[in-house]
């Protein structure tokens, strides 16, 4: 099964191939590919019509006011990348899930910041330090490598106690980028400290931050699109 659709909740999970077929779907044409057959079999298309919630999402996907890309990778090396499309009324996000499928999340555009906070699991964290840490790009790659041994050796090399949680985890390295003003925020999230990651051509700077400042960034990055304050 490459498409899984729950008509009651509107939850849609599918492969990237099926997503591509959905974007190309033509109600006047007979299903030709395996992916198109799966779209029909899942109950997503009934009597030549898409489920309304997904139809609504596709309108946003085709004519977004703002696009979002999100990447994340945790201490186990598991990636959960996604992309989002936001219009003035609605938003859709397509996010990788751990079983190899993607999940389409359809929501009101006003709730997009909250959905992003849920996806990156923003929540209470410690405040271990107020010191910025600078290192080479290579050292940062080792600090956030899938190999626990590389991470342990890199943490010892950098010698900053607040980075100790990187050795065992859990931690999450995530980045959200929007097409509006090309806003980007990369975050290294550990239980003891949340860091904003600033990169240039040679160096990475980890600036101590906290969930409150991160929420403020998430709330503002789509504010101009989803309704300015009166």
């Amino acid at each position, binding site marked *: 099964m490459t498409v899984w659709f729950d008509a009651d909740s509107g939850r849609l999970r599918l492969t990237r191939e099926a997503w591509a077929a959905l974007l190309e779907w033509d109600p006047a044409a007979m299903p030709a590919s395996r992916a198109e057959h799966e779209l029909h079999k899942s109950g997503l298309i009934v009597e030549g019509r898409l489920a309304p919630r997904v139809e609504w999402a596709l309108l946003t996907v085709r004519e977004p006011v703002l696009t979002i890309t999100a990447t994340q990778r945790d201490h186990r090396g598991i990636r959960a990348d996604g992309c989002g499309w936001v219009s003035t009324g609605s938003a859709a996000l397509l996010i990788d899930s751990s079983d190899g499928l993607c999940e389409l999340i359809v929501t009101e555009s006003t709730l997009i910041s909250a959905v992003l906070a849920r996806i990156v699991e923003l929540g209470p964290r410690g405040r271990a330090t107020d010191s910025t840490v600078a290192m080479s790009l290579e050292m940062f790659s080792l600090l956030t490598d899938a190999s626990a041994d590389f991470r342990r050796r890199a943490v010892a090399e950098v010698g900053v106690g607040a980075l100790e949680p990187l050795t065992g985890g859990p931690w999450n390295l995530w980045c959200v980028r929007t097409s509006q003003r090309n806003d980007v925020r990369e975050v290294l999230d550990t239980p003891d400290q949340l860091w904003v990651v600033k990169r240039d051509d040679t160096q990475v700077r980890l600036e101590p931050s906290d969930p*409150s400042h991160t929420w403020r960034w998430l709330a503002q990055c789509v504010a101009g699109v989803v*309704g300015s304050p009166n």
Partner: protein
Amino acid sequence: MTALRSYQDERGFGLSLPDRWYRLAVPPGAAVFAAVDPDQRAGFCANAVVTVDDLSATPDPALWQAALELRMERHLVGYRLLDREHTDGAATRRLLHHVVGQSVPVTVEQRSEIAAMSGIVLTVSVPTAAYNELADLVARICDSWETAR
């Protein structure tokens, strides 16, 4: 910068709020003070509410703080606790998010602490769509918060 007006309450708390916000009458119950911004932004009027829980029977601060979070989790739609700091002994600062009405997202800054066998909570709520503009004002309001501990 928005001018603030100071309020002192005989129940042992004080705070400063924007001049334009007006006080609302509160019915008898846990809420003892409420004030609201007359202007609606993004479908929501910013407001501040103070509640007082009688803790004479359950004076364990940790239990009361945890119960407060459970209560919000149960009653607020789309609740997410975004941040929590233990600022001073039994005092806790929280940032949280929830949804009201027709998908109006609200960001809440909260201070909760034990004072004179009471659990006292300041809750300042603003529309999330205007949070970036209002965050500094919210911080000033919460920084003005005082209790007679």
